[in-house]
């Protein structure tokens, strides 16, 4: 994988002008770029179904943002993170903006240290994720405190931390598969 997720403009082969990318090709790359965000949003919507268990929405958004920010920041750019956070806040009952800021903070941290994290084996990555999730839960709690001017219960934050820490391997596995498929497709296209 190259440094940035988006394929850098390849230098035109000498002697021939590079043909502009066709419509299909562009659709293809757009699909690849938007797939992680769309998948995360779809999962969050499904998790918010009234029949589902409570509190899963945030616990799904966090691993998705972390994973894609580390492994493919181009597919999980900050506007996408913003949209996911907004969706999370609207699906849940938290004060508007708290989830957005939390997810952006996770995204920023993950992008900042993405190279060391991406080099780690899965268990270490999981532990690092757990640390991030704990910090995110704490940040969410503080934001809620500031926004509602009331001391919120600690149990939901703790619940969110445990749930997202437990869900991470379950979500990371299909995301890793997806990442591999997308990378291979990209290599073939290139």
């Amino acid at each position, binding site marked *: 994988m190259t440094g940035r997720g988006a394929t850098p403009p390849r230098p035109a082969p000498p002697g021939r002008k590079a043909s502009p990318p066709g419509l299909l090709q562009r659709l293809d790359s757009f699909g690849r770029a938007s797939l992680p965000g769309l998948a995360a949003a779809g999962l969050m*919507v499904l998790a*918010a179904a009234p029949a589902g268990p409570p509190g899963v929405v945030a616990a799904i958004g966090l691993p998705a943002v972390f994973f894609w920010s580390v492994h493919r920041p181009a597919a999980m*750019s900050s*506007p996408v993170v*913003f949209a996911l956070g907004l969706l999370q*806040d609207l699906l849940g009952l938290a004060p508007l*903006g708290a989830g957005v*800021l939390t997810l952006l903070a996770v995204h*920023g941290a993950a992008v900042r240290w993405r190279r060391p994290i991406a080099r780690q084996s899965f268990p270490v990555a999981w532990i690092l994720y757990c640390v991030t999730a704990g910090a995110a839960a704490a940040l969410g709690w503080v934001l809620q405190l500031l*926004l509602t001017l009331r001391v919120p219960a600690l149990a939901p934050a703790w619940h969110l931390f445990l749930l997202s820490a437990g869900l991470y391997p379950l979500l990371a596995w299909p995301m890793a598969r997806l990442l591999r498929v997308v990378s291979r497709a990209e290599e073939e296209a290139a």
Partner: protein
Amino acid sequence: MLRLSIPLRQALARLTLPVMVAAAFATMLLGKADALLAERARTALADALAPIWAAVAEPLRAARDAAEEARTLVALRAENARLREENERLRRWQAAAHALEAENALLRRQLDFIPDPAPRFVTARVVADGGGVYARAVLLALHPSHDIRKGQVALDERGFVGRVTEVGARSARVLLATDINSRIPVALEGSRARALMIGTNGPRPRLAYWPEGTRPAEGERLVTSAEGNLFPGGLPVGVVRWSASGAPEVELFARLDRLDLVRLFDFGPDGILPPEAVARPAPRRGGGTAAMARR
């Protein structure tokens, strides 16, 4: 597509995160400043997503039903054991009931007991109360082809109501047990002692003429007495209540203040007064009534 130089693009990429963080703070402020906006946005989102959730709910429900089914199957064994045990117990009771039935039949044979025929009854609607010569009476609407006779017993779903005193082509009047002219022979269910229930025009008839030595107990059940062959015995009437002034009264089972349907039982013609005697009771010493005049 906009063509930008690579350094500019990189600078923009570096800038997006701070811009987004600022936007997040703006969102927070917006949500804080206008709580209604967040509410509206939530509702709009939920409206848009409702079809998806509805579609998802179907398989979820199916899965939950399957899980429930599995749990039921697991519990089936315990349930079966419980039912078998209960069946065993009920079988014992059934055996006891059969034994008692047989014993009863035997005793009846020995006593030459003639069982009562199952009484026929007609259900009639109460259309008016009051009126007529009685203070406490109700008027029933009847089908023209009825065969109601004077003296028939009226019961509501709880107990004794009164007796039919007048019969017309399409209506009949029932003298309620609370009327001052009503005299009903009753029996105390516990002691089998006979007594007379005398209407007072109030809600609770008096109890009188019980045998010496068997004082009606508070709360004792009263049933009709077959004495005089006026009534079949054993129709539920009420319970004994001692009033504050020390007189035994009867709290009727029937709700006479809210009668809507009564059943008129035909317990057979014998023992009933000739119609003229009911309509115009023969004067007796001490004020005779229909029931008393019969004696």
